[in-house]
């Protein structure tokens, strides 16, 4: 089922276009990676999807189950500072706020959502800890839990692993993959194209002149994909699998 559909989007700041002709759609169960060079407009597109930035042209249609405020968002980690006084459960609970108008405490329903999500992400034992004293990997898990509180359908991640070491990054991807299998669609901005093609079902490649959107398989075979990827397509059926070529030549 289609969660959101974007058609011919054009974005920019102060009248200057940064991103144009962006069309794509997100379906239930998709794992989409947004890749592109620095300054190609990845974060701009994220802001557009979240509704923080208005498009110059084109529009994004959200499905009935997914209004704009139902997207769980996880930003680049650098935004969070060292000495903020907040417990893990305070942070996770703040993800449930999108739809309540006011209140001092949180309702039982909100607490239940937070408890469930914390268990899913594996941070229940940290709930009373101070957020700023956690390790980078733990902090990203907490923020992922907060994002999941805001949504059941779609999480949008902006380079979630840019500050993590390779081991923690791999763990984080495994967790994302598990959540994705459980039915949460993932839309992730990534620097690392080779990691992206391993994990994603679809790729959006932003570039100043043209934008690619298609399945990962199509991407690996496209000109854009070939330029960036050292190893060829991993699937055996493909004729341009270098390993197969080697085997055949032998």
């Amino acid at each position, binding site marked *: 089922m289609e969660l959101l559909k974007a058609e011919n989007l054009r974005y920019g700041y102060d009248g200057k276009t940064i991103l144009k002709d962006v069309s794509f759609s997100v379906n239930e169960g998709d794992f989409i990676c947004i890749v592109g060079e620095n300054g190609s407009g990845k974060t701009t597109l994220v802001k557009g999807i979240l509704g923080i930035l208005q498009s110059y042209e084109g529009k994004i249609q959200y499905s009935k189950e997914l209004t704009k*405020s139902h997207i769980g*968002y996880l930003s680049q980690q650098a935004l969070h500072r060292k000495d903020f*006084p907040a417990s893990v459960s305070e*942070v996770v609970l*703040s993800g449930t706020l*999108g739809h309540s108008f*006011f209140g001092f405490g949180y309702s039982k329903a909100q607490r239940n959502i937070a408890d469930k999500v914390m268990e899913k992400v594996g941070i229940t034992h940290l709930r009373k800890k101070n957020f700023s004293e956690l390790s980078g990997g733990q902090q990203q898990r907490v923020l992922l839990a907060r994002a999941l509180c*805001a949504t059941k359908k779609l999480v949008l991640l902006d380079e979630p692993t840019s500050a993590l070491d390779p081991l923690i990054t791999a763990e984080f991807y495994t967790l994302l993959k598990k959540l994705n299998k459980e039915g949460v669609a993932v839309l992730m901005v990534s620097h690392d194209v080779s990691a992206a093609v391993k994990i994603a079902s679809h790729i959006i490649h932003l570039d100043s002149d043209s934008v690619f959107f298609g399945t990962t398989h199509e991407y690996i075979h496209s000109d854009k994909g070939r330029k960036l990827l050292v190893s060829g397509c991993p699937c055996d059926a493909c004729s341009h699998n270098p390993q197969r070529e080697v085997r055949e030549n032998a």
Partner: protein
Amino acid sequence: MLKMLSYPFMVNALIVGLLIAICCALLGVVLVLKRYSMIGDGLSHVGFGALSVAAVLNIGAPIWFALPVVMIAAFFLLRLTENSKINADAAIAVISSSALAIGVFVTSMNGTNINLQQYMFGSILSVGQSDIIVSIVLTALVIGMYVLFFNKIFAITFDETFSEATGIRTDIYNIAISLLTAVTIVVGMRMLGTLLISAMIIFPALTSMRVCKRFLTVIITSVVISVICVFSGLYTSFTFKDVPVGATIVIFNLGFFLVFLMISLVKRLLCSKRKAKSEY
């Protein structure tokens, strides 16, 4: 103690002082955590300029002139800070000194600098009926906002982009907080002084953050510290006649800060010792 309450001006000062203490502490936590501390400082200088101009123009209750001016300034300073293209701290510094210069210039033209001294360092005697009314309304608004929208204030302070993405109108909250800060500063600065009011906003938050690690406890502790400091400050300056009240309050705040800093250092030392032991 009872003698202190037998003077009507002391009762006025106590009412306004304690109410402003609560507002400063509540708003201060958010301002400090959002890295907006300089806005408070800038606004107090703009307030000084506005009060001086009001005095020269012979406006009956200068507070009614200063309030709108400082509120407009608050609005623009917030815009300045949000707009990443302009170097905000430099801009605030320029606005502060310009407002201060205008204030000093205007009062000296008038031939007297009694007001100057009073506005710079504050005076209990300047608290009037209108200050009491404004501070009661202000405190009601600030406390009301914090009680009703506590969760959202936390979410916005912690991560503005995320809150915006979940559909919270962060711009409205930011404007509300900076306008309330403007009013707090105008009312508070007449008693505590232009140069010292920003300490009232920054100190309690900074002090409680040494020890408390949750948002809710930081806010409650800041309010308690702030109220104790203002009360002790007023009592001290009443007992030792010539001591200015603003300076006394700031010194009490400094004392609290140092004590809390010591507590946090001792705590950390104990923690690392325990860790080292358990590793053996």
